[in-house]
């Protein structure tokens, strides 16, 4: 994801940026969406979630101007924080997409998302805490989880 703030008066900058971006996309070659059946919808889910959108918008406020406490956050610290948030949001979205297909154990989620097992355990817990996922049933000693929404 790339984001740049461009004023309406900065036409040249806008043009340069778009040219650069199309170049990057061209270099990446043809894209086959079917090759990413989980990752692509997860990415879309993460990017359209209110959380990342809000953090994107608020970044400049709290790093360039004062935040609500009249303090300014160091841009590199914010970037790090944002990156961690984006990564976790994407991981949650991956789990969400996998669970959308039906109840799964943590191991199954790990296999389908490619995330490490303990990582699935942690991010799944975020989904449970916010009321998006819940325990469904047990497969022997392994619990299956499902989406609640």
């Amino acid at each position, binding site marked *: 994801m790339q984001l740049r703030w461009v004023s309406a008066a900065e036409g040249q900058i806008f043009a340069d940026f778009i040219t650069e971006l199309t170049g990057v996309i061209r270099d990446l070659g043809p894209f086959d969406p079917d090759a990413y059946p989980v990752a692509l919808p997860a990415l879309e889910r993460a990017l359209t979630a209110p959380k990342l959108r809000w953090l994107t918008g608020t970044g400049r406020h709290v790093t360039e101007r004062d935040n609500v406490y009249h303090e300014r956050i160091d841009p590199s610290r914010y970037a790090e924080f944002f990156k961690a948030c984006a990564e*976790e949001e994407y991981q949650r979205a991956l789990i969400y997409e996998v669970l959308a297909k039906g109840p799964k154990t943590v191991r199954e989620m790990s296999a389908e998302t490619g995330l490490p097992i303990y990582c699935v355990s942690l991010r799944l817990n975020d989904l*449970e805490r*916010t009321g998006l996922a819940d325990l469904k049933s047990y497969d022997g000693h*392994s619990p299956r989880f499902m989406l609640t929404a």
Partner: protein
Amino acid sequence: MANESNNGRIGSVLVVGAGVAGMQASLDLANSGYRVYLAESSPSIGGVMSQLDKTFPTNDCAMCIISPKLVEVGRHLNIDVLTNTEVKSLEGDVGNFKAVLESRPRYIDPVKCTACGDCKKACPVSAVNFFNRGLDRREASYIKYPQAVPLAYSIDKDACIGCGLCEKVCLARAVEYEQTRVEREVEVGAVLLTLGNEVFDPSRFETYKYTRLPNVVTSLEFERILSASGPYKGHLMRPYDRDEPKKIAWLQCVGSRDMNRCDHSYCSAVCCMYAIKEAVIAKEHAHGDLDTAIFYMDMRTYGKEFEQYYNRARNEHGVRFIRCRVHSIDPTGEAELAISYVDENGEPRREEFDMVVLSTGFEVSKGATELADRLGIELNTHHFAKTLPSSPVSTSRPGIYVCGTFQGPKDIPQSVMEASAGAAACSAVLGDVRWTRTEVKVTPPERKEVMEGPPRVGVFVCNCGINIGGIVNVPEVREYARSLPNVVHVEDNLYTCSQDTQVKMAKVIRENDINRVVVAACTPLTHEPLFRETLIDAGLNKYLFDMANIRNQDSWVHMKESRRATEKAKDLVRMAVARAGLLNPLVEKPLEINQRALVVGGGIAGLNAALNLAQQGFEAVVIEKEKALGGMARRLYHTIDGLDVNRYLDELIERVRSHEKIQVLIEALIVGFSGYKGNFTTEVLVGPGMYERKINHGAAIVATGAFEYKPKEFLYGEHEGVMTQLELGDRMHEEPGTTSNWKRVVMIQCVGSRNEENPNCSRICCQGAVKHALQLKEMNPETEVVILYRDMRTYGLLEDYYREARKKGVLFSRFSLDKEPVVENADGELSVTFIDHVLNRPIKMAVDAVVLSAATLASDTEELATLLKVPRNAYGFFIEAHAKLRPVDFSSEGVFLCGTAHSPKLISETIAQALAASARAGAFLADTHQTISGVVAKVDTSRCAACLVCVRSCPFGVPKINEDNVSEINEALCQGCGVCASECPAKVIQLAHYEDGQIRAGISAFS
């Protein structure tokens, strides 16, 4: 303030720390007539207990038993709960301190916040959830737990990025980013430190790999895993992959009894019991078979009925107990954990587990030691507050008291006891200035005229932010209510409970002459008292009120079914309105309280209780059945921590005897007991002449003590070299020449304890043996002392003496119940044979003395218990109202207990418990504003058949068949539980406010 005549003493107390001890002390103090400032460093009260799942030995849910206390503290008119607050400095002297308190901003106003949680839902930032011990996350805007008091969110500034979103979504306008640190000065007469402890952090132990292995958790994390409000909603799962573990190990003494790695030589006193509890509860939670193993050094189940809990865990629940200190945990396979240990036969073994729980101990926090430094109080070598055995809750600085785990490691009942003891100590110096700093609620007169004519019902429907309004169509419910019979006013509010709505509500009730009020909102459990107060403010009797719970029982449970939830809300409102129409005003009669207390027993417990009551300003009458005061303590010469018991007793008796408010009756026998709380009459036969006396009193304290078991085993009574510990004490005192010449002494532990006949541990004998062993070594270092034990239970700081004894060469050898030592007498020569657990072969040694650590048994109190109608357990110890939270109360009000009549305990513990009992009794006597609840059962005597069903069914033993041969229920004693009303076959008993007609009206409105 009008307290110049009282040497300028100030009738308020600062309590620092709002865990269970701080809360108990605050309640006792506030009920005794003092204003309390309760300073808590976190945003909510409740402490560690609020994090626990279940509590031993009753397996009660911790939250269920603590939350009524949370609410009581939060709502108490004379307790100022100051959250996020620390003590900066303290100046002055006992009776007159000035404390500077500093409060960190919450950034959310707790008065305006309604805990709807919208800020949390919006918050884009997450942080480690310390409440769940880092097992999950929370938002920067958070509340510690759903039942927290104050029930309000706050912002974790360290995690917050300051984006401002929470302010935008807060409909109650409670978010205030401009808040800053606030300093305030308070005047107090005494300070009570209930700071609590940290839980030991095991990450410094490399070999346990706690930070690297997700399935190695601490015991407190495991509590959160088991808890229904925890990260896994109470499902037994391991963190790594959420699989349900099939095998769990507990490693005891992590951060306790360990000089090498963590420098904590003391025993943390609670871990053995909580590990057993966790193992038992985990088995209950498991779907299949769960194997649990506890690796321990000594199983220290020394508390009241703890040993039986241990036995049940082993014999009935199949918890495995393995005596071995485990050195390291090795990861194996994907997420399994291997433990290597040596079994009792000396065989090395290796076992794999799915999960390992580290039973972490207590540790004094850095904040606590810094505060101690600021306050100028001394700490002991382990950084706990230093106290003396004779004054267990007094710090080194007069006027500053300490209780709970900051005084030393201890469990909840002990902390609660000490909390009341701390309150008693404050009360003893401030008795003169009770009620000088307190507020009394002024209530307008009841408007009786509005009760004339038909019911005029006002219905207030709450949106609860979007909690109700987001699911239930509130305007529709409101308009529906308008159509119901008798309803004259309806409205809906964003938050019906908010302060401004309450003021408005009182006004609306007056203006519309409303005489019945229905609030459709949340649960009466938390909110009924608030709304009832509003009724009182509006001049209405508080019983003319009913609630419809359209949140917890509707919008929260039917979140996905908006339409049907709305219909259910209408049903609930219709039922409440129908019942409300039939509600009657009830009168709460004032309770008269005789300001004198009776203390039964003149031992250390009874004398301390009486003396403290007198210092508090109440009269006390001590009844002792023997000729001399002092009880069993007369047989003790010094305590393990150096108290000269005889001197202490002489001084104590002198102070009791010379106190003008105390009467002592010796050779006195109780023969009659009648009356009810606040107004008892006890008949006593006194002296050799057995003349009869009647004593009127408002409260009673039972302190009847215990005695040492006379052994039948080990040749006791057959050879003069075989004696009990008390007799050894006598001998060392009377014949020091003989005892110091002994070459070898063997002590045998658990004589008459922990066996089939008496399954209880007597708690005090391990330290007693160590104490005497040290004394023998002191008299003659050449004397060889061998202690034959089953588990050394030198709990808490007593562990230091155990270590000292080992260092001084006292030998300790373990035996098991099936291989008891044998004492033989060969022509007068004593010898002991036992199997050494290291060599695993019998050892026979000639000895000069065999000392039996005989059990502590309850005094014979059968008759007394029958007269007082107070319960005893199978072993003759009295049963307190609640093992955890009411350790010195009986369930019948106005009667309290303390000392070894409750269970065996040390002198310092006895003194603390005696003070606790006198605090509870004092709070009861001091609160002269008490009323008798209007919700009591009434008998229609004209139709009573005297069938005795009510007499038998009442859990409090209140109904009596009177002279007219009908059932009579004393309203002062009735608890309003309704059991008799529901049991009465002739339906002649009605419980006021829950009369059949009222309940039927609600039900028929539904069907």
